[in-house]
């Protein structure tokens, strides 16, 4: 079934899908706002000292102000666009790499299959957080470093998924025939294998987006606690840096977390409803019949 029809069905029948979509749109708007802020108010908008330090949340400063007197809400909005970009990079790149590596692994039987599945297993075993910390040490902290570290570990997850899917179809007639006609492997992989294994992996990626958001935040949190000052308006860094104030100025480490929850939840709700729509066994009537 095509994805548009799926989404329309999900929208009609599932409250969770509607809630998820509303949340996601809200987060996207916040991200756009956060991205536009510097263009409208000047590049230093996130760093400007607007008030006294440690102001509790008020109408003027929705999320209060931090230790330097910067407006937290502005910085959280800017963090939203950062998080959106980072999540997109991680998901798109790892999906892309995983899909192709998986398809290639399944297509070429023999040595290539063995070698590539070994490499996939290898990267699956490497804990993403520690890989990210190694990257931070090697290349310095920064949005791109952490994102690439996550790509380096997440691709293997899709790689294995794609491999299992592709292995299930590689001996079907249309692929065997295509091979028999002497079509080049690249062509078969691109035209026949990848399109046929994509959709469940895309759905999986949509659900995973929530985990990626949280993982990014967690890694940056750990990086953030060790630093003596933060410039970047990054959710994780803000929370990590703010931990030292938790007992006196709770809003500094706690309020930005709301945005992480919303963003993760939005993706997960959408992914979950589509997953159920795709599985007829899950969406038809069920009652405890025995």
């Amino acid at each position, binding site marked *: 079934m095509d994805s548009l029809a799926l989404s329309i069905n999900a929208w009609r029948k599932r409250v*969770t899908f509607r809630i998820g979509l509303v949340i996601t749109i809200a987060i996207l708007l916040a991200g756009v706002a956060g991205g536009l802020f510097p263009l409208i108010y000047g590049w230093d908008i996130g760093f400007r000292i607007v008030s006294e330090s440690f102001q509790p949340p008020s109408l003027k400063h929705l999320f209060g102000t931090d230790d330097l007197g910067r407006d937290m809400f502005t910085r959280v909005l800017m963090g939203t666009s950062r998080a959106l970009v980072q999540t997109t990079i991680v998901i798109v790149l790892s999906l892309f790499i995983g899909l192709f590596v998986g398809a290639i692994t399944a297509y070429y039987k023999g040595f290539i299959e063995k070698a590539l599945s070994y490499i996939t297993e290898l990267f699956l075993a490497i804990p993403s957080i520690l*890989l990210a910390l190694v990257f931070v*040490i090697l290349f310095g902290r920064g949005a791109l470093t952490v994102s690439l570290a996550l790509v380096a570990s997440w691709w293997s997850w899709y790689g294995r998924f794609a491999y299992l899917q592709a292995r299930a179809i590689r001996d079907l007639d249309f692929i065997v025939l295509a091979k028999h006609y002497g079509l080049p492997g690249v062509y078969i992989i691109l035209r026949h294998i990848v399109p046929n294994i994509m959709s469940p992996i895309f759905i999986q990626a949509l659900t995973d987006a929530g985990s990626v958001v949280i993982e990014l935040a967690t890694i940056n949190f750990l990086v953030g606690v060790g630093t003596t000052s933060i410039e970047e308006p990054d959710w994780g860094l803000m*929370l990590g840096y703010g931990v030292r104030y938790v007992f006196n100025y709770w809003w500094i*480490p706690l309020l930005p977390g709301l945005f992480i*929850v919303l963003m993760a939840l939005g993706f997960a709700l959408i992914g979950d409803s589509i997953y159920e729509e795709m599985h007829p066994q899950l969406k038809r009537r069920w009652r405890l019949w025995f």
Partner: protein
Amino acid sequence: MGITLNYVVRRIVLSIAIILGISIITYVFIYLAPGDPAYVWAGRPRGPLASEAIARARVELGLDQPIYVQFFLHVLRFFSGNWGLSIRFKQSVFSLVMRNFASTLELLLVSFAISIPIGLFLGIHSSLYRGSKIDAAINSLSIVLSNTPRFWIGLAMLLAFTSLNIPTYGRISDNFRGELVERVGLYLVDSLLQGRLDIFLDVLIRIIPPALALSLYPIGAIARVTRISLSEALQEEFVREAVSLGLPRNTVVYGYALRGLIPSLMQAIGLFFSYSLIDAMAVEYVFGREGLGNLLVKAIPASDFPLVTAALIIVAIVYVVTNTIADIVQALINPRVTM
């Protein structure tokens, strides 16, 4: 049985190959990083002693040797447990990581002891009453649970417990720290071995809040996989056959449908376990518990490369070994050995 033995051997060889591969990857990183490898290995030193530290690192890495000798030396050092010195702590990274890993592992184990039964319970009931209000509630709950940052909830919990005057900060109260004899490294076990119930209770009270925060993700995730796979299993022919024979509901659900799911659930739980490591480190830091998280937080500002890579390798080894054991156990208990 012959097939099984063959399988076991193959599986073990593969896992050794993977561990070796990981150690090589981390080694390659040193060369990928901008700047002189010796400089990176030495933790980007500055100041008067820098050149001396870099020279020492050069010898340690064998940088003056040809590349294949370097590689050989590296593998040799890896298997002899000589993984280098921590820049920040000036100790062997191997023992440093092992000691702190025990604490992280203890936290993870307690949190999974909490989350496996709860997750299974929620998943089973959500699946049995699928489509009902109960299911909607459980399913939404598990989505929310598995999409809330655990360290953030932990922080909120810490704030709440502290304002209620319940001691949750730290792994063990300072009074007991000197009295506990570490044997296994897991304080819950050590205190019991020592026969000290008071220490045990103190450790237990301190471990429960972080373990609860940590269990949010596995509870939600286990509930969700159980719900989906049980829903499918309940439609299977042999389960329907059990129903047609008039067996009671509990027998059908637990004895037939779930029994077939044990291998795949075990695999999923293993995945959640290794995924939870990242949360464990953050939650641990929040609650001021020693462990990998706390260790690495200090290692990052010091660019303690040997320490972080050692942690990476050890955690990966634990992952590979548990996975291998799980696979082998699975192959042994499944009567339909298809390998």
